[in-house]
């Protein structure tokens, strides 16, 4: 089963840039910290820093309309027939903590696609993307390398 078509291969190198419509905000930071069970004092108060993975996990900057499943985050909207999409993993580099007053600009790049076989013998398309997070001053905050897997399902 060939998953990596020429049409999909042409998507490699594509970029999308999102700029948040507002600051990250102290309330958003405290809310996230509460949701993951953190009581660290630097995530509260009038000018908190954000937990390191917050900016890589939030969809606040994307400004996308929720789809039929309720998802409102970045996506490439790839059509890979006969597969189901699962998360593979993430690799984060943290350069500088985001602050409540930061306005995020996030650049997503579709950096690669590879066709492989799962341990169970299913064909899968491995899609690798890189997201670079900066604030309104151009400071590099984080880099997120994300792997998504389009795994073939039985016909």
């Amino acid at each position, binding site marked *: 089963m060939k998953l990596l078509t020429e049409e999909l291969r042409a998507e490699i190198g594509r970029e999308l840039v999102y700029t948040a419509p507002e600051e990250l905000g102290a309330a958003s930071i405290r809310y996230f910290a509460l949701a*993951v069970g953190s009581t660290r004092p630097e995530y509260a108060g009038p000018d908190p820093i954000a937990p*390191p993975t917050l900016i*890589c996990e939030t969809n606040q900057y994307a400004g996308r309309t929720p789809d039929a499943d*309720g998802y409102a985050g970045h996506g490439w909207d790839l059509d890979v027939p006969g597969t189901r999409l699962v*998360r593979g993993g993430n690799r984060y580099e943290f350069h500088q903590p985001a602050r409540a007053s930061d306005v995020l600009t996030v650049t997503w790049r579709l950096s690669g696609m590879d066709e492989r076989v799962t341990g169970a013998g299913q064909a899968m398309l491995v899609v690798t993307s890189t997201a670079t997070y900066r604030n309104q001053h151009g400071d590099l905050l984080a880099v997120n390398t994300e792997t998504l897997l389009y795994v073939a399902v039985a016909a």
Partner: protein
Amino acid sequence: MMAFTRDWALTPSTLVAYAGATWDWHRLHHDAAYAAGRGLPAPIVDGQMFGALLAELVLGWAGPGAVLRSLHLRFAAPVYAGETVRCTGQVTAVNLDVVSVDLRVEVPADGRIAVRPAGAEVGLASADRLARLRLLTSTGEILG
């Protein structure tokens, strides 16, 4: 061995709070009927949440002033609403003020490994703690 651990009970309320906090309202993470329609026993924990839990684990262990430099994780099996996960870290190396740790997430109830391999690098602010870790490294105790 220099290992540290923390459990998180991932209740339906926890998943809803995380979905709200990340602006991710995908029904897979909060809608039981939607999950059942896809043959799942309950809504699935958003895999990215484990990154946040592992960051909290490492920073909680590393102490005040510590800075997370990097984190990587691979998802191995789904975790469902209502389950408790155990996050574990183990120190593998100390280089100047940066400590490397191996990480994993498992479901103690059935031994399922949810996240592995995973790891992080964290900069420590405590000179005393770094000195103790270096001593353990030099005696081979960290690697067991």
